[in-house]
């Protein structure tokens, strides 16, 4: 009884994580700008490992494997937002302007950030 319940929850978490990952991939391909692509990639890179690793931990239970998976989850939850932040900061420092509301880049040459 409880095993089937845990299996159902685990399968739901795995499939939801996969769906989030695909949505993030579509966003990375289709969004018009570095920052919007970073939004799609970075946010789904945080939620998809949470769901997928959570589903795998539910499958294995109390085991050394679960500890290693939780360690992976901890590293990913620390490093993925940091990498996204560093990418956005480097793009902003390189003078890439965000796309404005009317869908066009703001006119003018990108600043050299001197």
């Amino acid at each position: 009884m409880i095993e089937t319940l845990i299996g159902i929850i685990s399968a739901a978490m795995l499939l939801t994580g996969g769906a989030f990952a695909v949505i993030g991939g579509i966003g990375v391909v289709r969004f018009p700008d570095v920052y919007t692509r970073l939004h799609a990639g970075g946010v789904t890179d945080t939620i998809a490992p949470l769901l997928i690793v959570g589903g795998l931990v539910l499958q294995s239970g109390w085991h050394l494997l679960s500890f290693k998976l939780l360690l992976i989850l901890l590293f990913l939850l620390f490093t993925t937002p940091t990498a996204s932040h560093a990418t956005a900061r480097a793009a902003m420092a390189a003078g890439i302007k965000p796309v404005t509301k009317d869908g066009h880049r703001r006119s003018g040459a990108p600043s050299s950030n001197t």
Partner: protein
Amino acid sequence: MASVLLATILAIFTTMALALWRAIRGPSVFDTIVGVNVFGTKTVLLIALIAYFSGNNDLVDVALVYALINFLAVIAVLKLVRQRDLAASREHADD
């Protein structure tokens, strides 16, 4: 349960293909870095999923190491793009 794992693995593969397309197509170098970052994170998840799918539990260690290397690689490439020199100190290259 194996079919659920297989479906998740295929979803991760689809995401990796999309991220790789963005990394190849990206107009600026930062689009490439975004694509590579997404690709690396999904690689970690893919290795963990394959470890469960194939029953070879040692692959989780590979995923653990890959999670660390991926973060260091992204930060190192960003510093290389920004400063053109991995050995530069902040005072000299912060122009």
